[in-house]
């Protein structure tokens, strides 16, 4: 549209350039001068949008009304008609400007659609499953195809739950955090405090960036292969663990840390860099050693940002499916031991329930459980995101006094 909210300097200033001299605002011609003659009335776009909505609805109704065609027709009609109107009433440049403004707004609306659609679909399908009693506290032990079949044919309640998957996700993510936070923290301290821009630090920065793009499944393959090799060497040396397989919770934790470390390094590095140098210098001036300065002055100053970055990293890896699927497998019962036996994580649970329903011919109970688990997972991830922003906001270092 043409009535841009921020008037360009050209239109404000007018052709003569000197505001005091122009505009003889006589009562005969009320400011309908060169300033405003090239603009359309400000209500026009509402009228045109209304017209487009009606036309779009009519056209869509011809094809059998649905929301998608309605939206497409309305958008196309509105964008084209507003371009034509501006083009004929004002000029080509304004029309192009309006066209791109409309397209940018349209892009934003299109981007919102999948978000709304995903959240709506997961919530609407997932809530009934979530409301099933015992869903959060029971695992899938003893839930066979027959049980699911009974729930569908005889109206029995849908049994089974996600307790084992929640515990698995929690343990694996905690272990991954315990591995990657120290490594990531120390590496970023090296980059910020010790490295002097040499080739090593530049290589670390570059490859940390590259590592953020590692496909998650490749991280899983790596962790599985590395653990298998380690176990074979370990049992060869000590004679223990002869038949141990590498499918363990801890393998999944290693896979997740490969994905998590670069995120932690990036965020921590940014946070450490904004710690003012005066604080470090004040500490040095008191004779404090560098490592104590870092531990007692620099880290506490940046701790809120670091905590928020770590939370975001956890939120990222807790939703990962592929690396856990290929490293920790999936089971139906609760496994508390990271170092023994297979383990189920929440995303893997969702995937398996969709892909291999417990009862192949009666897949509805499985899908109900999967959707409810998806809802739980979304709530966890979004909660973590919100929590991270909250930490960053609440515990930010005080700005006053400096």
């Amino acid at each position, binding site marked *: 549209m043409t009535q841009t909210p921020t008037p360009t*300097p050209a239109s404000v200033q007018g052709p003569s350039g000197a505001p005091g001299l122009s505009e003889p605002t006589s009562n005969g011609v009320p400011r309908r001068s060169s300033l405003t003659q090239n603009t359309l009335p400000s209500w026009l776009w509402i009228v045109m949008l209304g017209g487009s909505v009606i036309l779009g609805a009519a056209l869509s109704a011809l094809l059998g009304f649905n929301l998608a065609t309605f939206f497409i027709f309305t958008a196309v009609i509105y964008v084209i008609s507003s371009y034509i109107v501006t083009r004929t009433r004002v000029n080509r440049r304004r029309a192009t400007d309006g*066209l791109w403004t409309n397209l940018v707004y349209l*892009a934003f609306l299109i981007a919102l659609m999948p978000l709304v659609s*995903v959240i709506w679909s997961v919530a609407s399908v997932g809530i009934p499953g979530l409301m099933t009693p015992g869903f959060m506290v029971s695992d899938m032990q003893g839930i066979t195809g027959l049980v699911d079949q009974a729930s569908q044919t005889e109206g029995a309640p849908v049994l089974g739950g996600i307790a084992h998957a929640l515990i698995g996700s929690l343990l694996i993510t905690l272990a991954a955090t315990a591995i990657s936070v120290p490594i990531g923290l120390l590496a970023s301290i090296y980059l910020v405090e010790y490295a002097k821009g040499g080739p090593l630090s530049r290589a670390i920065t570059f490859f940390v*960036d590259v590592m953020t793009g590692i496909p998650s499944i490749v991280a899983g393959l790596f962790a599985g292969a590395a653990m298998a090799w380690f176990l074979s060497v370990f049992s060869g040396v000590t004679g223990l663990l002869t038949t141990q397989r590498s499918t363990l919770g801890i393998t999944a934790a290693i896979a997740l840390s*490969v994905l998590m470390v670069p995120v932690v390094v990036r965020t921590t590095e940014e946070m450490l860099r904004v710690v003012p140098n005066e604080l470090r210098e004040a500490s040095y001036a008191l004779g404090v050693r560098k490592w104590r300065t870092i531990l007692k002055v620099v880290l506490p100053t940046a701790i809120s940002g670091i905590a928020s970055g770590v939370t975001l990293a956890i939120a990222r890896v807790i*939703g990962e*499916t*592929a690396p856990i699927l290929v490293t920790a497998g*999936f089971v139906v019962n609760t496994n508390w031991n990271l170092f023994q036996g297979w383990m189920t994580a929440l995303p893997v649970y969702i995937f398996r329930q969709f892909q291999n329903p417990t009862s192949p011919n009666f897949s509805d109970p499985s899908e109900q459980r999967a959707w409810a688990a998806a809802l739980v997972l979304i709530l966890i991830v979004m909660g973590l995101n919100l929590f991270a922003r909250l930490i960053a906001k609440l515990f930010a270092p005080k700005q006053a006094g400096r």
Partner: protein
Amino acid sequence: MTSSLTQSDKRGVAGDRVFSALTLSAGVLILLTLAFVALFLTVNSRDAVYQEDQGGWILTAFLDYAYPLVIGTLIASFIALILAAPIAVGVALYISHYAPPRFSKSIGYVIDLLAAIPSVVYGAWGMSFLGPALIPVYGWLHENLGFIPLFAGDPSQTGRTIFTAGVVLGVMILPIITSVCREIFIQTPKLHEEAALALGATRWEMIKMSVFPFARAGIISGIMLGLGRALGETMAVALVLSPGMLTASLISSGNSTIPAEIALGFPEAPPGSERQAQLIAIGLVLFLITLLVNMTARWIVSRHKEFSGAN
């Protein structure tokens, strides 16, 4: 007097040394990890290309197996890019230059929420909602544009096609491209923008003349980062696509991607078998492709940083 000073000094020096060595080793460990990823994948994929009982090297057999997957991965990723890139740039522009400044930050959070949704949820959504919703579109494309090889072939009755997978991937990479572009757009020198406006440019002309030239490298690298993510995305494709042979048609079921193939095949593959080695080998191929894409993207960004004066 000197003794107490030097004593404590010694301990302090030791602390400093230990701590700096710790941080250095953590940094080196990251580099080593990346090297080990490449090493372990290479070692474990040996069985896929070399089998003693099949007469040594079986490279052609592996290539025959791998190339449809590589092409399928590329097809899905390019569909995602073509759909997501223009919209992502538009959204980034909306946040940086069109939205009311008071809300632009919260709008950024909303777009970031797209990145927060786990991939398996996107997969479920694509399988159960998007796919069925696209069936009439596929039917229409087949009827009216069936002469193009892309839309030839029987349209899928479940909607679980490579095109649906591409759309889901597009949604997933949208926030990545958006956030990179947004960062760069915001860094456009204010003076350039104001100079353009002062010369009478409309807002679009200002963006075209000052924002885009400044941000070109950033946009390209953002798109490449999105490409890297799309190439490696597993679960969405594994759930959405019903895999099959390589076919040019986007609207019938068929094609597969490397990550989906690994995710579907790996849990069933016995450890140490040739099948597992094969899956690890295509994992290595995927790793190398994404490494290349990501390194190029990062290289563009770092090169751009040096002369833009933005940082």
